[in-house]
């Protein structure tokens, strides 16, 4: 057996090697800018990764022959990530987008090894001369979703399928609650963690548990449409995540917080082509178009117009979501009357507001 493995492996490698020698490599001609993307989920997740891939295609459309793009999907946020990132760099990619928080340290390490390659890491906080960070203020969209949920919920309990209890997600939960409570001050949000970004089975189970416990609106911070589908099956209102998921719940999706990376990706690729790329930190919201709301559907016009008003107020900056007084559910005063939480506080948020139920590991 063991000999068999050796010989099999050797034979396969040898055969392929012999063949490849004769094959010749494709001729490199005009040297397009090679842009690489590392995805945490499959491009067909219809959510987070899907939207990043739309952004990649926008780059291809914009620049045509001047760029060529590559992606690697379903990359584990563990020891494999650094290898994939390095591999892309060593294959001649000049600009590499790593699109999940868990790729942060692998990106930084790969960037040290490839100082001439530019890296762009989504949702992290570590930068370097050749590493930029970017993220969307998705919590703004979640606030608008919350406003709708406040109108739609009859029982006053909203189910929230969470991925990991990281600040990004915690912030979204609090923003959602603030939106809902701006309409109906007794609303409660129940959070269930699935400890994964993409796990349709567990996401669906979590949504079902929340529905069984009495939630009559479901929202999610995971990447697949599974919670939305579970809600649709139960006839419960729900929100799409990262992309417009109306196809999965034609009668129950009320809107979706849509990530739109197209403009950012095109701009960054252009910067490299023009030779003026610099490390930067971007956190775009509704105002920059990095966050968009899908069409308001399946709701009475009064709810849709309330949502439109909230969206407009947030976009213009007229309404600041995290305006004091804010007290965490543990009774800690976070900010006083009239003050607004700054970005540093938002980026490190590890507390829930009163009204959020569910464990928050600390």
């Amino acid at each position, binding site marked *: *057996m*063991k*000999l*068999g*493995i*050796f*010989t*099999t*492996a050797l*034979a*396969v*490698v040898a*055969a*392929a*090697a012999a*063949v*490849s020698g004769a*094959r010749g490599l494709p001729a490199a001609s005009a040297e397009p800018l090679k842009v*690489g993307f590392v995805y945490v989920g*499959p*491009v067909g997740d219809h959510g987070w990764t899907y939207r990043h891939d739309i952004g990649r295609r926008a780059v291809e459309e914009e620049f045509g022959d001047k760029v060529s793009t*590559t*992606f*690697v*999907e*379903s*990359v*584990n*946020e*563990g*020891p*494999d990530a*650094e*290898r*994939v990132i*390095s*591999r*892309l760099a*060593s*294959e001649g990619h000049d600009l590499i987008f790593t699109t999940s*928080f*868990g790729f942060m*340290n692998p990106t930084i*390490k790969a960037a040290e*090894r490839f100082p001439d390659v530019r890296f762009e890491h989504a949702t992290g*906080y570590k930068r370097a001369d050749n590493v930029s960070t970017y993220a969307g203020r998705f919590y703004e969209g979640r606030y608008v979703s919350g406003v709708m949920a406040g109108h739609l919920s009859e029982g006053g309990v909203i189910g929230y399928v969470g991925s*990991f*209890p*990281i*600040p990004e997600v*915690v912030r979204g939960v609090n923003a959602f609650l603030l939106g809902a409570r701006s309409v109906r001050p007794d609303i409660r949000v129940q959070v269930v963690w699935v*400890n994964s970004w993409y796990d349709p089975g567990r996401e669906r189970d979590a949504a079902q548990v929340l529905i069984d416990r009495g939630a009559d609106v479901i929202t999610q911070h995971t990447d697949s449409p599974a919670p939305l589908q579970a809600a649709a099956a139960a006839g419960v209102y729900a929100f799409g995540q990262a992309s417009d998921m109306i196809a999965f719940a034609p009668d129950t999706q009320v809107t979706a917080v849509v990530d739109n990376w197209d403009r950012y990706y095109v701009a960054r690729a252009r910067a490299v082509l023009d030779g003026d790329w610099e490390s930067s930190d971007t956190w775009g919201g509704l105002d920059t178009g990095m966050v968009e709301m899908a069409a308001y559907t399946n709701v009475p016009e009064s709810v849709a117009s309330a949502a439109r008003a909230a969206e407009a107020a947030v976009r213009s900056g007229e309404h600041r979501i995290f305006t004091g007084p804010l007290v965490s559910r543990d009774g800690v005063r976070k900010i006083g009357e009239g003050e607004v939480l700054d970005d540093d506080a938002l*980026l*490190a*948020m*590890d507390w829930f507001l009163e009204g959020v139920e569910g464990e928050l*590991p*600390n």
Partner: protein
Amino acid sequence: MTRLRVEPRTSAPLSLHVAAFAVPVAATALLGSLVFLSFSISPLAGLHAFFVAPVSSAHGLSELLVKAAPLTLIGCGLALAFRSNTWNIGAEGQFTLGAIAGCGVALFAPWQDSALMLPAMILAALAAGAFWAGIVAWLRTRFAANEILSSLMLVYVAQFLLLWLVQGPWRDPDGFNFPETRLLQDAATLSPLLPGTRLHSGVLFVLPAAVCLWLILYRSLFGFQLRVVGAAPRAARFAGFSRARIIWLTLCLGGALAGLAGTLEVSGVIGQLVPRISPGYGFTAIIVAFLGGLHPLGVVAAALLVALTYLGAETAQILLGLPHAAAGIFQGLLLFTVLGGGFLRRYRVRVIPRAETATAGTAGTTKTAPSLSSPSSTITGTTKTAPSLSPSSSTTTAPSLSSSTITETTKTAAPLSSSSSSLSSTTTATETVTGKVTTKTTPSLSSSSSSSTTAGTTKTVTKTETDDG
């Protein structure tokens, strides 16, 4: 109705060995070509991306070793356990606990920057992995709890322990509340062997560990006992070998190695604890162990092959745009054909026409079990042994015990299929003890379908074997 019967081969001519690797290679190339072609990719380019491109540079080779190292360490330990019919499915949990223990030492030991740090981390990881597997051994030997279930369940316990630690007490205070520990200090980080690559000095543990396990398995009394317990449980009991001791030792040794792999991964590759430290090494290593023929040195080769397919899957995505799922299909095809080739080299499949099935019990030289004309007896005939006294004529081990010669084959069923206790004893043994032939068959699962009278008859003629009495 014709039946298929799988029988161990009694001889293995050279042509068979040639076929056993030529056929899988050809089958993989052929089936893989179909996968590539369905994505409009030239098969040659596909094979090149899978098997050549990933290792065509020093960097690629270093990544191959980095990926194969944990698979080898875990796979070797599992091979030992599996050889003794102890089904440790929870190496992923032992890996996780080793990583936790090693990292815990790095975070909290008072000798933060001392040279003692790495040895202390490794010792802690060995102990933690052995402890986690020891729980399984204790449940098995004390309460006869099925080790497949208990070891698997402990994987989830370990993963939730890791999650709790990185989200709570061990979270990096300067990490914006993200669920990660701080990065390990230099003293707790394995030095790189090759500058500019991730090849770390932990890889140096791998080959010596595999050789040690080979020595233990084939050159020590313990290894001999282990093999006899696995291959011939009854003979092992005659000889006075302690099944419980073997369970304890194989589980703890495997657990320690998985724990070592865990801490090497954290210290050499990741550099901190994060919610997900393993892309399923503990489970992949089960495949690796079987692919390596449950032989420590075979495991080394198998780990390299499996690691190469993972690298190849990524490279095919990067170079050819082959989707992740299609790369997974190709990977599965390769493992399937190679495992299948290994199986067909050791066993042959005979087609038994309907007419023969009635007399199959006594027909041929391979079966000395009493004939039960019930159809179920033919179905169970998957492991009927040839009562051969020549140890070299069979690929299975034939340990000789003082005055008696015992030849047995074990059923190498997939570990999960032995989850029911009745299956775990489906070892059919034919023993020749001082010239007298005694034969035992175990009732198969399907015997429940036969009438109680038949079952009763079976028992009067044969004796039921349980391997862990």
